């Protein structure tokens, strides 16, 4: 019993949750971990560390089309989203007390939704979550109407670049065009997008952009909020003022150099990567649907992340499928939020108009830079028996048949 279970080949199809680090990022980070020096110290060791941090900032800026001074390092996606939502809201409202509205979408990640709900409950924000269509695309007309109703009262707009569950890309250019006409800043959570689709901060016209290391081959616990220099952001975390006085905390040079290496690599290899994984993804969807003809593909069929496949298996509980696939060494996600590990039907799928039942019957398979044809083959081999079993369990639980 104390022996580890026999090692079996694992088929990892959950890169949207986290993806393996690039060996180059591990090497860069490991090297820096062995060096001493606080980037804020004035002596030679401090200067050496500072140089690593600033070079990393420049490399990230180069890869993302922003200025180095626009990169604010944080602890990751959740902190960046909180900083953008609260920091921009507070700064904009303190400039003009009428600015109390925040416009966002019903399909944002909880790292955006929860700060917005918090601002609504605790701080008088009026949060409007705009609807999406059945393929998860923002209803741009609804955004236009919401802005036009009273442009002067909008503190910010926050729309994710790509949805983390179903992979749909949002019409960021159109969002920016609508908001810019009224000088309203736009934040975008691009955690799932960087390294997957082309992301150019300056060209996008967005004002603040969230990214995180562990989704693009970098380390956990580090990310950035790219935010325009001229934009005022109220700090959430106070202390030494290390990052533009917006974000305090000793600068994590090893994590930052790991992040910069991963951003450079993922963005540099992006075109080739996207072509390769989207072909794998298309093969995955096609062959899974050959085995399970009732399976339905979710999200926008064209304007989507290259590595994301999201499927509903009618009559099967996603939980059951996940467990059965896991037992066969295939790892994926139900894409649902968990509290105490209790699966709730996904707010994204519900917002897309899915029934509670279909929302609970869905799985996300996300590929990444280490994915191979063998991974797809393993899933295709495992999915048939798993769906058969899960359908039996679904029938017991009173879900509709296939």
């Amino acid at each position, binding site marked *: *019993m104390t022996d580890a279970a026999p090692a079996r080949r694992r088929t990892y199809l959950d890169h949207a949750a986290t993806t393996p680090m690039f060996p180059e990022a591990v090497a860069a980070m490991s090297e820096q971990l062995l060096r001493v020096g606080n980037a804020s110290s004035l002596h030679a060791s401090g200067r050496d560390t500072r140089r690593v941090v600033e070079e990393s900032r420049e490399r990230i800026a180069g890869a993302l089309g922003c200025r180095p001074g626009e990169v604010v390092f944080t602890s990751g996606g959740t902190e960046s989203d909180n900083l953008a939502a609260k920091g921009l809201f507070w700064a904009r409202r303190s400039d003009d007390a009428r600015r109390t509205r925040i416009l966002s979408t019903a399909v944002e990640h909880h790292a955006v939704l929860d700060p917005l709900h918090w601002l609504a409950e605790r701080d008088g924000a009026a949060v409007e979550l705009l609807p999406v269509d059945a393929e998860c695309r923002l209803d741009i007309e609804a955004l236009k109407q919401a802005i036009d109703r009273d442009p002067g009262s909008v503190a910010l707009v926050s729309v994710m670049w790509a949805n983390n569950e179903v992979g749909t890309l949002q019409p960021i250019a159109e969002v920016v065009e609508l908001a810019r006409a009224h000088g309203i800043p736009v934040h975008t959570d691009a955690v799932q997008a960087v390294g997957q689709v082309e992301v150019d901060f300056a060209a996008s016209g967005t004002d603040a952009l969230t990214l995180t290391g562990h989704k693009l081959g970098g380390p956990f616990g580090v990310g950035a909020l790219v935010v325009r220099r001229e934009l005022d952001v109220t700090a959430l975390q106070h202390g030494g003022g290390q990052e533009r006085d917006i974000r305090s905390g000793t600068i994590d040079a090893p994590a930052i150099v790991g992040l910069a290496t991963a951003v450079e690599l993922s963005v540099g290899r992006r075109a080739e990567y996207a072509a390769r994984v989207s072909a794998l993804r298309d093969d995955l969807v096609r062959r899974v649907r050959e085995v399970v003809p009732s399976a339905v593909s979710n999200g926008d069929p064209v304007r989507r992340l290259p590595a994301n496949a999201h499927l509903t298996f009618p009559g099967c509980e996603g939980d059951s499928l996940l467990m059965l696939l896991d037992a066969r060494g295939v790892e994926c996600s139900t894409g649902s939020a968990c509290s*105490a*590990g*209790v*699966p709730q039907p996904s707010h994204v799928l519900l917002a897309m108009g899915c029934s509670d039942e279909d929302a609970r019957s869905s799985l996300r398979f996300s590929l990444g830079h280490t994915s191979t044809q063998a991974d797809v083959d393993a899933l295709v081999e495992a999915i048939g028996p798993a769906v058969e*079993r899960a359908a039996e*369990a679904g029938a*017991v639980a009173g879900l509709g048949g296939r």
Partner: protein
Amino acid sequence: MKVLAAMSGGVDSAVAAARVAEAGHDVTGIHLALSRNPQSYRSGARGCCTIEDSNDARRAADVIGIPFYVWDLSERFHADVVEDFLDEYAAGRTPNPCLRCNEKIKFAAVLDRALALGFDAVATGHYAQLRTGADGLVEMHRAEDMGKDQSYVLGVLTQRQLGHALFPLGDSAKSDVRREAERRGLAVAAKPDSHDICFISDGDTGGWLADRLADRELAHAGSIVDRDGEVLGEHDGSYRFTVGQRRGLRIGRPAPDGKPRYVLDIEPVSGTVTVGPREALAVEHLTAIRPVWCGTVPDRALECTVQLRAHGEEHRAVVTVASTASTTATDEKVEVRLLDRATGIAPGQAVVVYDGTRVVGSATIASADTGTGA
């Protein structure tokens, strides 16, 4: 065998899972999420429904080396156990929710799903013993450790359910189980036992019922009367009373003979609560409904023992099944003549029938005749 181990986050279910895994079975651990809002259920180390308990179960599964998942049974639990508990109290009966949970959740919803998913059995940390009898049927017996015996709350299980159940702790003493948990490096070794009803967070059943029954206008305020119908006082809800209860009656006047008074009967619709002397609680005959037989249905008057409440004493009895046409007929009745008198038996409680240590079956008490004919 592929075994699903239900892990509450407590020491018993953790050791049970460890034993099944050690025996060489392919074990998967699951924790049942029973509340949609985990904070609303019992907090701290006593419960089975909190985030902390879920984490404890997960850590035990890590140590044992088995996969672990959380299954959301909250809707089923609410409908089949919590609502049933409220309905029973509103009807003036005294239900046992643990028994209902075993009947409807652990060995029904969970077992059925497990079997459909390809598992062969469900293992729990209950203290009861399973053996195969001479007739090839699975028999359930009391646990070796009588202080921990839980066969009473398992008395609702059918042969089919017992055929897919594993109770690895049935032959062990609780103290040994704790020592074993420690030896196995399970962090829950010293976690206190749970006692109260898991969905009542602070243990205040009266207050919990009051809040919910008042919302449904089922509180049924009424009078407290003696056996002659004389009104002795008023109360704000009959759910606060259970047959045999002595405390909390809040009757100003003492009884003429100065002796304590007990709740004898509850009439839920009028809200009338009848009280009287202890002698009037004596019960010699019970009628019970909805019997469940673990194996063969008794076809003649059965001289046996019965247990009338969890951790209650055994009474010698003669049990007769009114009709044996079908084991599932809802109109089937069981008559129980008690050779050893019992006191304070409340409708809604389960009578579990034993032949020696073997569980024969169970039924829900519908009425109890006091020896005095009241």
